[in-house]
Protein backbone atom coordinates (compact mmCIF):
# COMPACT_ATOMS: atom_id res chain seq x y z
CA UNK A 1 0.00 0.00 0.00
CA UNK A 2 1.35 3.42 -0.91
CA UNK A 3 2.41 5.60 1.98
CA UNK A 4 0.10 8.50 2.67
CA UNK A 5 1.21 11.60 0.85
CA UNK A 6 0.73 15.00 2.37
CA UNK A 7 0.65 18.41 0.90
CA UNK A 8 3.31 20.45 2.51
CA UNK A 9 3.83 24.10 3.06
CA UNK A 10 7.26 25.60 3.26
CA UNK A 11 7.48 28.33 5.83
CA UNK A 12 8.30 31.62 4.17
CA UNK A 13 6.72 34.71 2.73
CA UNK A 14 3.83 32.79 1.15
CA UNK A 15 3.17 30.62 4.18
CA UNK A 16 4.37 32.49 7.27
CA UNK A 17 3.90 31.43 10.87
CA UNK A 18 1.60 33.52 13.03
CA UNK A 19 2.92 34.52 16.43
CA UNK A 20 0.57 32.05 18.14
CA UNK A 21 1.80 29.24 15.88
CA UNK A 22 5.42 30.13 16.56
CA UNK A 23 4.73 30.06 20.29
CA UNK A 24 2.90 26.72 20.02
CA UNK A 25 5.73 25.17 17.99
CA UNK A 26 8.08 26.08 20.83
CA UNK A 27 5.71 25.04 23.62
CA UNK A 28 5.51 28.66 24.75
CA UNK A 29 3.04 31.48 25.12
CA UNK A 30 2.62 34.43 22.80
CA UNK A 31 4.07 36.79 25.44
CA UNK A 32 7.36 34.94 25.08
CA UNK A 33 7.34 35.62 21.33
CA UNK A 34 6.74 39.30 22.08
CA UNK A 35 9.86 39.26 24.25
CA UNK A 36 11.88 37.63 21.45
CA UNK A 37 10.83 40.43 19.12
CA UNK A 38 11.74 43.09 21.68
CA UNK A 39 15.22 41.61 22.10
CA UNK A 40 15.64 41.25 18.33
CA UNK A 41 15.98 37.47 18.23
CA UNK A 42 13.12 37.06 15.77
CA UNK A 43 11.93 39.52 13.17
CA UNK A 44 8.33 40.45 12.52
CA UNK A 45 8.02 40.00 8.76
CA UNK A 46 4.73 41.85 8.37
CA UNK A 47 4.37 44.59 10.95
CA UNK A 48 0.97 44.78 12.61
CA UNK A 49 -0.50 46.38 15.70
CA UNK A 50 -1.50 43.22 17.48
CA UNK A 51 1.06 40.48 18.15
CA UNK A 52 -1.55 37.92 17.05
CA UNK A 53 -1.16 39.26 13.50
CA UNK A 54 2.62 39.18 13.39
CA UNK A 55 4.15 36.82 10.83
CA UNK A 56 7.43 34.91 10.99
CA UNK A 57 9.56 32.75 8.70
CA UNK A 58 11.65 29.58 9.05
CA UNK A 59 14.71 31.43 10.33
CA UNK A 60 12.61 32.82 13.17
CA UNK A 61 11.37 29.37 14.14
CA UNK A 62 14.94 28.08 14.15
CA UNK A 63 16.11 30.96 16.35
CA UNK A 64 13.15 30.60 18.70
CA UNK A 65 13.80 26.86 19.12
CA UNK A 66 17.49 27.54 19.76
CA UNK A 67 16.62 30.12 22.41
CA UNK A 68 14.25 27.64 24.05
CA UNK A 69 17.14 25.17 24.24
CA UNK A 70 19.50 27.76 25.71
CA UNK A 71 16.92 28.76 28.30
CA UNK A 72 16.40 25.13 29.25
CA UNK A 73 20.00 23.96 29.21
CA UNK A 74 21.74 26.96 30.71
CA UNK A 75 19.03 29.07 32.25
CA UNK A 76 20.23 32.10 30.27
CA UNK A 77 18.24 35.30 29.85
CA UNK A 78 17.09 36.48 26.47
CA UNK A 79 19.85 39.08 26.01
CA UNK A 80 22.53 36.46 26.64
CA UNK A 81 20.70 34.00 24.39
CA UNK A 82 20.67 36.56 21.58
CA UNK A 83 24.42 37.05 21.90
CA UNK A 84 25.06 33.29 22.01
CA UNK A 85 22.95 32.79 18.88
CA UNK A 86 24.89 35.48 17.03
CA UNK A 87 28.16 33.84 18.01
CA UNK A 88 26.90 30.37 17.06
CA UNK A 89 25.88 31.62 13.62
CA UNK A 90 29.26 33.24 13.13
CA UNK A 91 31.09 30.06 14.18
CA UNK A 92 29.01 28.01 11.73
CA UNK A 93 29.59 30.50 8.92
CA UNK A 94 33.34 30.52 9.47
CA UNK A 95 33.49 26.73 9.74
CA UNK A 96 31.60 26.38 6.47
CA UNK A 97 34.01 28.84 4.86
CA UNK A 98 37.03 26.89 6.09
CA UNK A 99 35.48 23.62 4.94
CA UNK A 100 34.93 25.08 1.48
CA UNK A 101 38.59 26.06 1.32
CA UNK A 102 39.75 22.66 2.47
CA UNK A 103 40.94 23.99 5.82
CA UNK A 104 38.41 22.25 8.05
CA UNK A 105 41.10 20.13 9.67
CA UNK A 106 42.90 23.25 10.85
CA UNK A 107 40.16 23.92 13.41
Amino acid at each position, binding site marked *: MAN*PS*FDTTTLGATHPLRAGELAHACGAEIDWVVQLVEVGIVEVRSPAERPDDWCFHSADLQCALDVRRLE*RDFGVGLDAAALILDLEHEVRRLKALLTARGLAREI
Partner: protein
Amino acid sequence: MDFKDYYQALGVERNASDEDIRKAYRKLARKYHPDVSKEPDADRRMREINEANDVLRDKEKRTAYDALADQVAQGRYAGAGPGEGFQPPPGWDEGFEFHRRPGQGPADHAEFSEFFSSLFGAAERRSAERRQYRARGEDHHAAIEIALEDALKGAEREITLRSQELDDQGQAQWKTRTLSVKIPPGVHPGQYIRLAGQGMPGHGGDPAGDLYLEVRIAPHKLYRIEGRDLYMTLPVTPTEAALGAQVKVPTPGGGMVEVTVPRNARNSLKLRLKERGLPGHPPGHLYLLLEIALPPADTEVARKAYEQLAQAAPLNPRQHLGV
Protein backbone atom coordinates in the same frame (compact mmCIF):
# COMPACT_ATOMS: atom_id res chain seq x y z
CA MET B 1 16.52 -0.79 24.34
CA ASP B 2 19.01 -0.64 27.22
CA PHE B 3 18.53 0.85 30.65
CA LYS B 4 20.35 4.19 30.70
CA ASP B 5 22.48 5.28 33.62
CA TYR B 6 21.87 9.02 33.68
CA TYR B 7 24.28 9.56 36.58
CA GLN B 8 27.06 7.95 34.58
CA ALA B 9 26.16 10.09 31.56
CA LEU B 10 26.77 13.23 33.61
CA GLY B 11 29.66 11.75 35.61
CA VAL B 12 28.06 12.42 39.00
CA GLU B 13 27.34 10.27 42.05
CA ARG B 14 23.87 9.06 42.85
CA ASN B 15 23.69 11.46 45.81
CA ALA B 16 24.77 14.48 43.75
CA SER B 17 23.08 17.75 44.69
CA ASP B 18 21.17 19.87 42.20
CA GLU B 19 24.15 22.20 42.07
CA ASP B 20 26.53 19.28 41.35
CA ILE B 21 24.30 18.19 38.49
CA ARG B 22 24.05 21.71 37.11
CA LYS B 23 27.84 22.13 37.20
CA ALA B 24 28.49 18.72 35.64
CA TYR B 25 26.00 19.41 32.89
CA ARG B 26 27.45 22.80 32.01
CA LYS B 27 30.99 21.44 31.97
CA LEU B 28 30.02 18.59 29.64
CA ALA B 29 27.86 20.84 27.47
CA ARG B 30 30.87 23.08 26.88
CA LYS B 31 32.93 20.04 25.97
CA TYR B 32 30.43 18.40 23.64
CA HIS B 33 28.48 21.29 22.15
CA PRO B 34 28.60 20.54 18.40
CA ASP B 35 29.70 24.08 17.58
CA VAL B 36 32.85 23.93 19.66
CA SER B 37 33.62 20.26 20.23
CA LYS B 38 36.34 18.39 18.40
CA GLU B 39 35.04 15.04 19.64
CA PRO B 40 33.86 12.81 16.78
CA ASP B 41 30.69 11.76 18.62
CA ALA B 42 29.83 15.22 19.98
CA ASP B 43 26.25 15.19 18.65
CA ARG B 44 25.43 11.85 20.26
CA ARG B 45 27.06 12.77 23.58
CA MET B 46 25.26 16.10 23.67
CA ARG B 47 21.92 14.35 23.23
CA GLU B 48 22.78 11.94 26.06
CA ILE B 49 23.82 14.77 28.33
CA ASN B 50 20.69 16.80 27.58
CA GLU B 51 18.52 13.80 28.29
CA ALA B 52 20.27 12.96 31.57
CA ASN B 53 20.08 16.59 32.62
CA ASP B 54 16.36 16.75 31.83
CA VAL B 55 15.65 13.82 34.13
CA LEU B 56 18.05 14.52 36.99
CA ARG B 57 17.23 18.24 37.24
CA ASP B 58 13.53 17.46 37.63
CA LYS B 59 12.79 16.30 41.18
CA GLU B 60 9.82 14.11 40.25
CA LYS B 61 11.48 12.48 37.29
CA ARG B 62 14.66 11.90 39.28
CA THR B 63 12.81 10.28 42.19
CA ALA B 64 10.87 8.00 39.86
CA TYR B 65 14.00 7.16 37.88
CA ASP B 66 15.94 6.38 41.09
CA ALA B 67 13.20 4.04 42.27
CA LEU B 68 13.22 2.23 38.94
CA ALA B 69 17.04 2.06 38.92
CA ASP B 70 16.88 0.47 42.40
CA GLN B 71 14.49 -2.18 41.14
CA VAL B 72 16.74 -2.92 38.20
CA ALA B 73 19.89 -3.00 40.38
CA GLN B 74 18.29 -5.37 42.89
CA GLY B 75 17.17 -7.69 40.13
CA ARG B 76 13.55 -7.31 41.19
CA TYR B 77 12.79 -6.27 37.70
CA ALA B 78 14.66 -8.09 34.99
CA GLY B 79 13.10 -6.48 31.92
CA ALA B 80 10.96 -7.72 29.11
CA GLY B 81 12.75 -11.01 28.64
CA PRO B 82 15.94 -12.54 27.33
CA GLY B 83 17.23 -10.63 24.36
CA GLU B 84 14.39 -8.15 24.40
CA GLY B 85 16.18 -5.42 26.28
CA PHE B 86 14.72 -3.12 28.86
CA GLN B 87 11.03 -2.27 29.02
CA PRO B 88 9.64 -0.30 31.97
CA PRO B 89 7.37 -2.43 34.19
CA PRO B 90 3.65 -1.60 33.99
CA GLY B 91 2.68 1.08 36.48
CA TRP B 92 6.30 1.91 37.32
CA ASP B 93 5.42 5.61 37.45
CA GLU B 94 2.33 5.25 39.61
CA GLY B 95 2.02 8.18 41.98
CA PHE B 96 4.19 10.49 39.90
CA GLU B 97 2.95 13.26 37.69
CA PHE B 98 5.55 14.37 35.19
CA HIS B 99 5.30 17.60 33.36
CA ARG B 100 7.63 19.75 31.44
CA ARG B 101 9.38 22.51 33.26
CA PRO B 102 8.38 26.07 32.44
CA GLY B 103 10.22 26.94 29.29
CA GLN B 104 10.19 23.43 27.89
CA GLY B 105 8.44 22.65 24.66
CA PRO B 106 7.80 19.60 22.55
CA ALA B 107 10.95 20.21 20.53
CA ASP B 108 13.07 19.84 23.66
CA HIS B 109 12.43 16.11 23.79
CA ALA B 110 12.40 15.45 20.07
CA GLU B 111 15.91 14.02 20.02
CA PHE B 112 15.77 12.11 23.27
CA SER B 113 16.10 8.33 23.31
CA GLU B 114 13.47 5.64 23.09
CA PHE B 115 14.33 4.86 26.73
CA PHE B 116 13.36 8.39 27.77
CA SER B 117 10.14 8.34 25.76
CA SER B 118 9.12 4.97 27.15
CA LEU B 119 9.58 6.25 30.69
CA PHE B 120 8.36 9.82 30.55
CA GLY B 121 6.72 10.51 27.19
CA ALA B 122 3.38 8.84 27.83
CA ALA B 123 3.23 10.06 31.42
CA GLU B 124 3.81 13.65 30.30
CA ARG B 125 0.96 13.37 27.85
CA ARG B 126 -1.41 11.84 30.43
CA SER B 127 -0.50 14.66 32.78
CA ALA B 128 -1.21 17.23 30.06
CA GLU B 129 -4.56 15.61 29.37
CA ARG B 130 -5.52 15.78 33.03
CA ARG B 131 -4.57 19.43 33.28
CA GLN B 132 -6.09 20.71 30.05
CA TYR B 133 -9.44 19.45 29.00
CA ARG B 134 -9.24 21.09 25.61
CA ALA B 135 -6.00 21.85 23.89
CA ARG B 136 -4.49 21.60 20.46
CA GLY B 137 -2.04 18.72 20.12
CA GLU B 138 1.65 19.40 20.46
CA ASP B 139 3.67 20.09 17.37
CA HIS B 140 6.30 17.54 16.43
CA HIS B 141 9.75 18.39 15.17
CA ALA B 142 12.02 16.29 12.98
CA ALA B 143 14.66 16.81 10.32
CA ILE B 144 14.82 15.65 6.73
CA GLU B 145 18.09 15.46 4.81
CA ILE B 146 17.89 15.83 1.05
CA ALA B 147 20.36 16.14 -1.80
CA LEU B 148 21.11 19.54 -3.31
CA GLU B 149 19.53 18.34 -6.55
CA ASP B 150 16.27 17.65 -4.66
CA ALA B 151 16.34 21.18 -3.26
CA LEU B 152 16.76 22.57 -6.77
CA LYS B 153 14.18 20.53 -8.60
CA GLY B 154 11.84 19.36 -5.87
CA ALA B 155 11.25 15.73 -4.96
CA GLU B 156 9.08 13.36 -3.02
CA ARG B 157 10.79 11.65 -0.10
CA GLU B 158 9.67 9.12 2.46
CA ILE B 159 10.30 9.69 6.12
CA THR B 160 9.73 7.24 8.91
CA LEU B 161 8.68 8.60 12.25
CA ARG B 162 8.54 6.64 15.47
CA SER B 163 6.54 8.01 18.32
CA GLN B 164 4.51 6.92 21.29
CA GLU B 165 0.77 7.11 21.30
CA LEU B 166 -1.72 6.22 24.01
CA ASP B 167 -4.10 3.37 23.29
CA ASP B 168 -7.72 3.20 24.48
CA GLN B 169 -6.55 2.06 27.92
CA GLY B 170 -4.13 4.97 28.20
CA GLN B 171 -1.11 2.69 27.74
CA ALA B 172 1.80 3.94 25.66
CA GLN B 173 2.36 2.10 22.42
CA TRP B 174 5.17 2.64 19.94
CA LYS B 175 3.91 3.44 16.50
CA THR B 176 5.92 3.74 13.33
CA ARG B 177 4.50 5.61 10.39
CA THR B 178 5.96 6.36 7.03
CA LEU B 179 4.94 9.50 5.24
CA SER B 180 5.61 10.65 1.72
CA VAL B 181 6.63 14.26 1.82
CA LYS B 182 6.65 16.56 -1.17
CA ILE B 183 9.77 18.68 -1.19
CA PRO B 184 9.05 21.84 -3.15
CA PRO B 185 11.81 23.19 -5.40
CA GLY B 186 13.82 25.98 -3.84
CA VAL B 187 13.94 24.83 -0.23
CA HIS B 188 17.13 25.78 1.54
CA PRO B 189 18.91 24.53 4.66
CA GLY B 190 17.23 25.62 7.86
CA GLN B 191 13.88 26.10 6.18
CA TYR B 192 10.91 24.31 7.71
CA ILE B 193 8.34 22.22 5.91
CA ARG B 194 5.08 22.06 7.74
CA LEU B 195 2.69 19.12 7.62
CA ALA B 196 -0.56 20.29 9.12
CA GLY B 197 -2.22 17.91 11.56
CA GLN B 198 0.67 15.42 11.65
CA GLY B 199 1.76 16.27 15.20
CA MET B 200 0.27 14.91 18.42
CA PRO B 201 -3.49 14.38 18.64
CA GLY B 202 -5.46 17.18 20.26
CA HIS B 203 -7.16 16.93 23.63
CA GLY B 204 -10.89 17.23 24.14
CA GLY B 205 -11.69 17.40 20.46
CA ASP B 206 -9.22 20.13 19.58
CA PRO B 207 -7.16 19.67 16.41
CA ALA B 208 -3.90 17.77 16.20
CA GLY B 209 -0.60 19.60 16.21
CA ASP B 210 1.60 20.03 13.17
CA LEU B 211 4.80 18.32 12.13
CA TYR B 212 7.71 20.63 11.34
CA LEU B 213 10.51 19.16 9.25
CA GLU B 214 13.76 21.06 9.28
CA VAL B 215 15.43 20.81 5.88
CA ARG B 216 19.06 19.73 5.89
CA ILE B 217 21.02 19.41 2.68
CA ALA B 218 23.64 16.69 2.44
CA PRO B 219 27.19 17.88 1.75
CA HIS B 220 27.79 18.23 -1.99
CA LYS B 221 31.05 17.42 -3.74
CA LEU B 222 31.09 20.73 -5.63
CA TYR B 223 28.89 23.25 -3.92
CA ARG B 224 28.70 24.69 -0.42
CA ILE B 225 25.37 26.19 0.58
CA GLU B 226 24.82 29.34 2.56
CA GLY B 227 21.18 30.33 2.75
CA ARG B 228 20.08 30.40 -0.90
CA ASP B 229 23.59 31.14 -2.17
CA LEU B 230 25.93 28.45 -3.44
CA TYR B 231 29.72 28.62 -3.35
CA MET B 232 32.10 26.67 -5.53
CA THR B 233 35.87 26.67 -5.78
CA LEU B 234 36.94 27.31 -9.36
CA PRO B 235 40.51 26.24 -10.15
CA VAL B 236 42.29 28.32 -12.80
CA THR B 237 45.81 28.23 -14.17
CA PRO B 238 48.26 31.10 -13.48
CA THR B 239 47.99 32.00 -17.16
CA GLU B 240 44.20 32.22 -17.00
CA ALA B 241 44.40 34.30 -13.85
CA ALA B 242 47.03 36.65 -15.23
CA LEU B 243 45.76 37.13 -18.76
CA GLY B 244 42.08 36.59 -18.21
CA ALA B 245 40.11 33.77 -19.80
CA GLN B 246 36.75 32.33 -20.63
CA VAL B 247 36.26 29.09 -18.67
CA LYS B 248 33.40 26.61 -18.56
CA VAL B 249 31.68 26.07 -15.23
CA PRO B 250 29.04 23.48 -14.28
CA THR B 251 25.91 24.98 -12.79
CA PRO B 252 23.84 23.35 -10.06
CA GLY B 253 20.93 22.87 -12.44
CA GLY B 254 23.02 20.54 -14.58
CA GLY B 255 24.07 22.84 -17.42
CA MET B 256 27.30 24.64 -18.25
CA VAL B 257 27.99 28.34 -18.46
CA GLU B 258 31.00 30.22 -19.71
CA VAL B 259 32.50 32.59 -17.20
CA THR B 260 34.92 35.44 -17.76
CA VAL B 261 37.95 35.36 -15.48
CA PRO B 262 39.21 38.97 -15.41
CA ARG B 263 42.84 39.84 -16.13
CA ASN B 264 45.16 39.92 -13.13
CA ALA B 265 42.69 37.93 -11.07
CA ARG B 266 44.03 37.14 -7.60
CA ASN B 267 43.60 33.96 -5.62
CA SER B 268 40.24 33.76 -3.74
CA LEU B 269 38.65 36.37 -6.01
CA LYS B 270 34.89 35.93 -5.81
CA LEU B 271 32.86 35.92 -9.03
CA ARG B 272 29.11 36.08 -8.84
CA LEU B 273 26.74 34.32 -11.22
CA LYS B 274 23.53 36.18 -10.56
CA GLU B 275 20.50 34.10 -9.61
CA ARG B 276 22.24 30.79 -10.32
CA GLY B 277 21.88 29.64 -6.71
CA LEU B 278 18.82 28.06 -5.12
CA PRO B 279 15.54 29.27 -6.57
CA GLY B 280 13.31 31.48 -4.46
CA HIS B 281 12.11 35.03 -3.99
CA PRO B 282 14.68 36.39 -4.42
CA PRO B 283 16.76 33.56 -5.90
CA GLY B 284 20.24 32.94 -4.56
CA HIS B 285 23.49 33.49 -6.43
CA LEU B 286 26.28 31.14 -7.36
CA TYR B 287 29.67 32.38 -6.15
CA LEU B 288 32.89 31.09 -7.67
CA LEU B 289 36.03 31.37 -5.55
CA LEU B 290 39.11 31.40 -7.74
CA GLU B 291 41.90 29.04 -6.76
CA ILE B 292 45.09 29.38 -8.75
CA ALA B 293 46.49 25.93 -9.48
CA LEU B 294 50.24 25.90 -10.17
CA PRO B 295 51.57 23.64 -12.92
CA PRO B 296 54.26 21.41 -11.41
CA ALA B 297 57.85 22.22 -12.38
CA ASP B 298 58.64 18.59 -13.06
CA THR B 299 60.22 18.84 -16.51
CA GLU B 300 63.14 20.78 -17.82
CA VAL B 301 60.87 22.77 -20.11
CA ALA B 302 58.54 23.70 -17.25
CA ARG B 303 61.48 24.72 -15.01
CA LYS B 304 62.85 26.93 -17.78
CA ALA B 305 59.44 28.51 -18.31
CA TYR B 306 59.25 29.40 -14.60
CA GLU B 307 62.74 30.91 -14.74
CA GLN B 308 61.81 32.97 -17.78
CA LEU B 309 58.67 34.14 -16.02
CA ALA B 310 60.68 35.20 -12.97
CA GLN B 311 62.93 37.29 -15.22
CA ALA B 312 60.11 38.72 -17.30
CA ALA B 313 57.81 39.59 -14.39
CA PRO B 314 59.96 39.95 -11.26
CA LEU B 315 57.91 39.83 -8.09
CA ASN B 316 58.70 39.98 -4.37
CA PRO B 317 55.59 38.62 -2.67
CA ARG B 318 57.26 39.10 0.76
CA GLN B 319 57.90 42.80 0.40
CA HIS B 320 55.37 43.63 3.12
CA LEU B 321 57.43 41.45 5.50
CA GLY B 322 60.39 43.72 5.01
CA VAL B 323 62.48 41.03 3.26
